[in-house]
């Protein structure tokens, strides 16, 4: 026991890093898929998308205010939404106030469209008809207000990322102003991005329903907006995306596992590993304390905690 206590006390932190990394490798290599937990907030998100009309005058605005730093969580969230919208043939526009999101705005819908076309060779999803990429738009607060108050949102934004005037983009033909935005879906891990949309994407008499995908860090902050009704749905980190993905799989039986399920499985394993290590660490601490107490009564010097993780 004394040896075990000493080992725990002197355990190098790098051993713990390696253990966590190893724990992650297994589900990824073995392609292990755990069914995600059902999440009420993600269910609401799913329901909000299900309720969307798919006519020509309706549009979902997908604000991808994320970059490589939060890609791990925001990408699967955005991807599952895009897939849902494409499957339902609901038109959507991608926009970002973060310059580093630009490559993802282009790549993500194309990737999903390719996957869906692979699943349904008879169907086709095309840029312009099903979605439009509005690209990176600087000056977040001003840009959002401009969009919200625009008489004609197409004129205000001018062109899409390819330089095509928005009036000529098929899916934007009947989209005039904020009232045509049936859902605003905002994905971010940045402080202030959600706030800006909440604050400014509305007029005096209209506010489109808003759903949000946040990183795990900001879940507690996002809940308050869900509770107050300012959000109609929420993807809580990767778990939220996985829950939405599971609902999609329930509806579309032939659908393969997507990135959200895979990542969520690995994340679950990582959590188990971390909880195990926390328990182990605390066990070591308790044993060391006991030993110290025992040493105090016998005059034996206590075990040093130096080097403990």
């Amino acid at each position, binding site marked *: 026991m004394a040896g075990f206590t000493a080992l725990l006390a002197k355990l190098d932190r790098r051993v713990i890093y390696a253990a966590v990394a190893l724990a992650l490798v297994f589900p990824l290599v073995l392609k292990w898929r755990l069914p995600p937990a059902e999440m009420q907030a993600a269910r609401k998100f799913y329901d909000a998308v299900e309720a969307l009309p798919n006519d020509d005058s309706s549009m979902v605005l997908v604000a991808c205010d994320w970059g490589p730093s939060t890609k791990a969580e925001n990408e699967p969230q955005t991807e599952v939404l895009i897939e849902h919208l494409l499957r339902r043939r609901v038109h959507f526009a991608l926009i970002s106030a973060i310059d580093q999101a630009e490559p993802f705005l282009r790549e993500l819908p194309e990737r999903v469209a390719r996957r869906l076309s692979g699943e349904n060779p008879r169907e086709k999803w095309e840029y312009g008809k099903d979605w439009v990429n509005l690209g990176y738009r600087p000056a977040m607060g001003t840009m959002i207000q401009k969009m919200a108050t625009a008489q004609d949102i197409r004129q205000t934004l001018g062109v899409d990322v390819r330089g095509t005037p928005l009036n000529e983009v098929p899916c934007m033909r009947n989209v005039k102003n904020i009232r045509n935005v049936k859902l605003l879906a905002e994905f971010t891990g940045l402080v202030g991005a959600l706030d800006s949309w909440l604050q400014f994407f509305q007029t005096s008499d209209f506010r489109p329903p808003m759903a949000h995908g946040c990183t*795990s860090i900001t879940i507690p902050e996002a809940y308050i907006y869900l509770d107050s009704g300012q959000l*109609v749905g929420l993807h809580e980190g990767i778990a939220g995306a996985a829950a939405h993905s599971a609902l999609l799989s329930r509806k579309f039986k032939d659908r393969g596992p997507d990135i959200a399920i895979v990542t969520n499985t690995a994340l679950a394993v990582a959590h188990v590993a971390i909880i195990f290590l926390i328990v182990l660490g605390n066990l070591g601490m308790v044993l060391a304390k006991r030993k110290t107490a025992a040493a105090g009564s016998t005059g034996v010097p206590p075990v040093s905690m130096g080097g403990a993780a």
Partner: protein
Amino acid sequence: MSAWPVVLPVILGGIATLAIYSFLVKENPFYRFFEHLYIGIATGFGIVFGVQRFLWPEFFRPMLGYDREVFADGAYDRPWRSWYLFYLLPFAFGMLYYFIYSRKRQWLSRVVIAWSLGVSGGFALKGFFAQYMPQIIGSFKPLVAVHTVERGLLINFHDMAGHLPDDAQIVKGHIDLYRLGPSYVRLVIKDKDGKLSEVRGRVTDVNEDPSTGSSTLEVDGQERVIRSSDVVLREDLAPPSDVADAYEGHGGEHQYLAHRVLESWEQGSVPWSEWVVEGTAAAAETNTGMDLLVRENVTVSDPYRGEKWTVGKRESIGFKSCELSPETLRSWFDRPESEFGIILWRNAGVGGSFLHRFASSKYADAARRPKLVIEYRVPNEEKPKELVLQNGLSGYSGTEEYVAVSDSGPPTQPGPEFLLGASARKPGGGLSLNWWSSSGILANWIFAVTLICVMTYFLFSLEHNKPGIYQASMVGRWLMMLCFGAFFGSTIMARMALLVERMQFLIEKWLPAIFGQG
């Protein structure tokens, strides 16, 4: 060789990932190089996109006239005007910022900074109210299960006795309520600032959200979310001429109860919960010791998606019918002084929904107003007759129907369902199953206790060693620690997600690329 443009970024990405994670082993030049590289690339991105997406399209292009249309012959749709150079004014103003590097002219930069701060302050003020007012309003939550009557339909029978011959023998009767389908609705909405506005449109879907009671309606071709608390009755509004139906309240899953009202509404002391008897409608009818007249449970998850109503035998188009026994009807006519009408009441706490999709007396189309249909026989006549009591139709001039809002006053208050926790009382008097939900009483108590205790902890003008204050601040500290624990857990989850994504990249893309299998 053609694969290299695809493979090379993957290989470099893998190396960069390993380089950044090498920090976990220890600080090293490999890590530092890639850290700087990342920052450099991010800055480069910012500069390029700043020019490409802002400076060029918003400044240089219009100033130089490049936004003009060019015809096939090379002519422009309009000539370049010298006043386009006015674009230089805001540009020059912004450039004053760079005087921050000049000791002598540094004050010039402060002008721009002051301008920016002013604009930001204005934005912040505007944004604050838009963002936080709903939070503040939502913080006022009841700590007890408020005893309320939800919006329902009341038909008074004070003076209906005269419409039935004294010797009439009642055969049967039913109340018909026009069920609102996905048709046009008329709502009076109270905005966040209390402004009333009329909204008309077609119901396309209902967002079942017990915590907010919000519904998504298509209004004039546009969808909007309307909270139940925003829907108010407006007596002074004239009935719309072009809208056939109306709509009161919100919800998704329905469970309705029709009750006989035995006390005046004005008294405000009607113990509503005592009216409910568990069991079928038939059982309720036989339970003569109770005030319950009819009890019909209707459960429809979404009437717009094809589910049928299960109440009543008259499943006619658009109408929902509640059957009434002849004895009950007879009693209405024999003792009108003790009858104060019928209330159609949603069974509180069931399904967490707030929608009453029934037409009421407010509707322009009289044919769709609720009606009481009584089939009776007169001794000397062979054929049974039918008495239809409906506001707006001949034969009934009695007290018109009301939409009941509360048991204590005229229908001018917003629906009580918006008081979170209000629906937590079961008809039998106990708490319903959703009392612990985010909109339930327990959550409200936790919220209130946390608020008071944490505020006490931070109220340093009070000495924390005093009895009561000490305990409250200790509880506040513990509750804060619990919250911080949740935050910390979330932070770990986010970091781990990043690691998982990178591991995924290394295993599924980088390694195959390295070994030529990509």
